[in-house]
């Protein structure tokens, strides 16, 4: 299988506070290995602060990895020159969470969509460009005559469509979508999810879909990786993960997703981490209903074909 993105043993540590007293190091990504195959949608699910946005930043070259390699289309993001990276950006584009802050309010839709084309010198001829931009707008479900309008004239859902159109201007092969629907109204979320699915299929995109919402991931993703405190704790094809979740954290997350028709369960989920973890222990140990605080299993193991889990406390009947 052809890999669009391949991440091997990626570590990222933020350092700060060098001025007064000693420095402070925060490890954000720990030994992350992931493959995004071409033409598939990989969901990265985790709670706030687990490192999912940092992973996106490393992929996009906004942050440098501390160690490990990130290969996008077989090129090492940290090693290539600026020109090479610029070319790589034609292949890989991003859609952000908040369509209110990710579009420059002083630019018209035409200017917003033209910027990437200018940078890469595409469609220099005016009529050809206008034709292309209009086609692009219809592709994301907006009227072609919206080109001369400003972002404030649009609602949240329409703005997110503009963001998606902008990401598609260079006809990329990889789309990184960082929580693209979480800022939208419920009745509009479904529209954007349908649009993302249609586009990823029609254009044969590989998509890294970052979300905290399992329900959304369920709809859109072919594969799912669950992240907790900077580590991938479980990864599997989506269908497999939802029918046989293995890691205690995945099961806790799934149980916490509110659903229509599900009345509140009796026992509440255990409170969040109360104490520091033992050095080298699994970072989930202090919240884990099964492990002791010194549980050291952190390496991903292939439990069943393609189903990887970083825990030895598997549910009944799921042994290797």
């Amino acid at each position, binding site marked *: 299988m052809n890999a669009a993105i391949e991440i091997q043993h990626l570590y990222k540590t933020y350092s700060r506070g060098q001025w007064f007293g000693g420095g402070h190091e925060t490890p954000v990504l720990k030994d992350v290995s992931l493959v995004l195959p071409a033409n598939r949608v990989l969901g990265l699910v985790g*709670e*706030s602060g687990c490192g999912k946005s940092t992973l996106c930043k490393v992929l996009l070259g906004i942050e440098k990895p501390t160690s490990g390699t990130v290969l996008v289309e077989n090129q090492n993001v940290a090693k290539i020159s600026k020109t090479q990276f610029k070319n790589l950006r034609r292949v890989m584009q991003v859609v952000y969470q908040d369509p209110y802050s990710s579009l420059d309010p002083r630019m018209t839709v035409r200017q917003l969509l033209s910027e990437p084309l200018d940078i890469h010198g595409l469609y220099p001829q005016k009529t050809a460009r206008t034709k292309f931009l209009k086609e692009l707008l219809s592709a994301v479900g907006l009227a072609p005559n919206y080109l001369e309008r400003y972002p404030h004239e649009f*609602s*949240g*859902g*329409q703005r997110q469509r503009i963001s998606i159109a902008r990401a598609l201007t260079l006809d990329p092969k990889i789309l990184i979508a960082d929580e693209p629907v979480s800022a939208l*109204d*419920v*009745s*509009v*979320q*479904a*529209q954007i*999810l*349908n649009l993302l*699915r249609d586009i990823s299929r029609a254009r044969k995109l590989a998509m890294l879909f970052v979300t*905290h*919402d*399992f*329900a*959304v991931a*369920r*709809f859109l993703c072919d594969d799912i990786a669950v992240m907790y405190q900077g580590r991938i704790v479980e990864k599997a094809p*989506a*269908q497999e993960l*939802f029918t046989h979740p293995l890691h205690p954290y995945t099961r*806790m*997350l*799934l*149980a*916490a*997703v*509110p*659903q*229509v*028709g*599900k*009345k*509140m369960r009796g026992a*509440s*989920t255990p*409170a*969040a981490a*109360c104490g520091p973890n033992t050095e080298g222990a699994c970072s989930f140990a202090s919240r884990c209903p099964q492990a002791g605080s010194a549980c050291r299993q952190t390496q991903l193991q292939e439990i069943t074909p393609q189903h990887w889990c970083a825990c030895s406390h598997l549910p009944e009947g799921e042994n290797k």
Partner: protein
Amino acid sequence: MVVSPVLQVCDLQVSFMMQKRAYPVLRELSYNLLPGRILAVVGESGSGKTVHALSLLGLLPPAAHVSRGKILYRDTDLLTMPRARLRDVRGSKISMIFQDPSASLNPVLTVGEQLIETLRAHKPMSKQQAREEAVRLLEKVGIADAPARLSAYPFEFSGGMCQRVMIAMALALSPDILIADEPTTALDVTIQAQILHLIRELQQKEKMAVIFITHNLALASEIADEVLVLYGGLCMEQAPAKDLFEDPHHPYTKGLLASLVSMDRRVERLPAIAGQPPMAGEITKGCPFASRCPQAQEKCRQQLPPLTQQGIRMVRCFEEKTL
């Protein structure tokens, strides 16, 4: 036995003044809140759900005002009540928790100081008594090592813990009514589940009535006894939670429920509602949902359908009557 409601909202209308014109953002809202019940008010942004909550406590921003209607708390109208009396009611009888817990706590005071301040503002008690009471409250909302945590500042707490502190403050004077405005939106799902449990547990223990405001239908389904669906500033449907989710009547409620992603099976396409929700204060002649409604007729665009009783529920739609 007939239980009298703790709160009666009658024909409430809230308007914003912009350039000397009044834009109603909430219209014709009426409901009764019974003691010990949880009412979920569900709506998208701009539907008027937060404005409704703020109007109950007289906390509307200066540009907005209640332009019609009554809000009766145990038969006294909160809208005509003198400010000093209202201040008494607010906090001790009706209290509120907000969406972003870290923004609603004062960052330069310790959690203990804020709790003690709340207690002493409403009840004559010594500092020592208030301190003991504060410890008791923190324990009640599940904060471990409460005496030591009193001297902690909000930034030392996580979002979920801050929300617990907010709940402790809201419950400090055993109110009759708790208004929770999107209390878990800023929190992670596992923490959200804990906070919901806490609210439910305390509500049952204290026999409080809760108005739970949310945009999340699934949350409403899990926590509420009764659900009120707002759209474009109007109540579209109101029913006991079970009936509403099992058999929604209004096309908007139906559409919303259908467009939710199911966790049980993978679907090929989501049945999305086309179009965009109206902006706050955008008034159409007919039904605000008409432009997105699959069943809309000419009549719906010309005339606002009245809210009518259909069995145990209230629905605002012309269509349903014929069914």
